[in-house]
């Protein structure tokens, strides 16, 4: 069902203003949330995570870019998000990809921020290789 719904998705023209871009973000979030039961079934995630937790993960991903105000950038991010959602629903990813990106990824980041006693070098080292 989710697969059929996502199959007819077309690339929309650029948003005219910020309000339209904002509207499209909510539309994308709704589409993603309605796909989550299918994702749970496809990847058999019932013993790892719940639908509400996945929904929180998706909303936190969207919230990371809450500071963006350029409609063109928002359209680009929405395009990437829709591509990612399509990859997930079409089973172009494996189970451990989903778990690593949307289930465990949050915990790793959370644990990293708790280490306040480490030096700046170690903090940067844990975060990324490029610094």
């Amino acid at each position, binding site marked *: *069902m989710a697969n059929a719904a996502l199959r007819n998705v077309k690339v929309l023209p650029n948003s005219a203003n910020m309000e339209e871009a904002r509207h499209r*973000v909510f539309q994308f*979030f709704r589409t993603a949330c309605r796909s989550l039961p299918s994702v749970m079934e496809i990847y058999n995630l019932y013993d790892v995570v719940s639908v509400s937790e996945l929904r929180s993960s998706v909303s936190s991903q969207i919230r990371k870019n809450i500071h963006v105000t350029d409609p063109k950038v928002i359209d680009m991010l929405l395009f990437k998000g829709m591509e990612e959602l399509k990859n997930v629903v079409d089973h172009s990813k494996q189970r451990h990809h989903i778990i690593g990106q949307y289930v465990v990824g949050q915990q790793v980041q959370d644990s990293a921020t708790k280490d306040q006693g480490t030096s700046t070098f170690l903090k940067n080292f844990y975060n990324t290789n490029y610094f």
Partner: protein
Amino acid sequence: MASVSATSLRFQPFLKLSTRTTTQRNQFKFPNINTSEKKFRRCSEMYHDLEGRSNGWKRVTKEGRDQGCYKTSSLGAVSVGWNRRTFPSLRSSRLRICAVKAQPETVQKVCDIVRKQLALPAESELTPDTKFSALGADSLDTVEIVMGLEEEFGITVEEDGSQNISTVQEAADLIEKLIQDKSGAS
């Protein structure tokens, strides 16, 4: 519902393979007049499946569509007759739906979901007139609450409906209305 559709997603490659085989067989045997009724029914069912699931195979899809239209029209005739008989009662039930207010159970359930979604402490006051924005929820939080309510009550809130939700009472009223519509339609 979701599990059935997801299961069909799983078996998609098998369906594709069988689709090709069936297509070739049908094309090869089309001039045969001795085709049995059973085979014909099975083929028409396959066409009907093809119509909904794959964008390719335009010829087969076309034939399937014709078959589907024929079946739908016959079934539609029956359902139209059925609907005519029960139309007055549908009207009265719809009039009742307009006057329905949200039940206390629904309001309580909505409050629980909102509290869980926004990670509010149990001591915080959550009255039916409380606004989501007053609780510190932004627009994305509101949409997330609506999606959570959809999952809990098994309904689908349309875009027009979700835009007007800003308090617990409005959410509960809309949910009650949608539940009534859903039960009335079935």
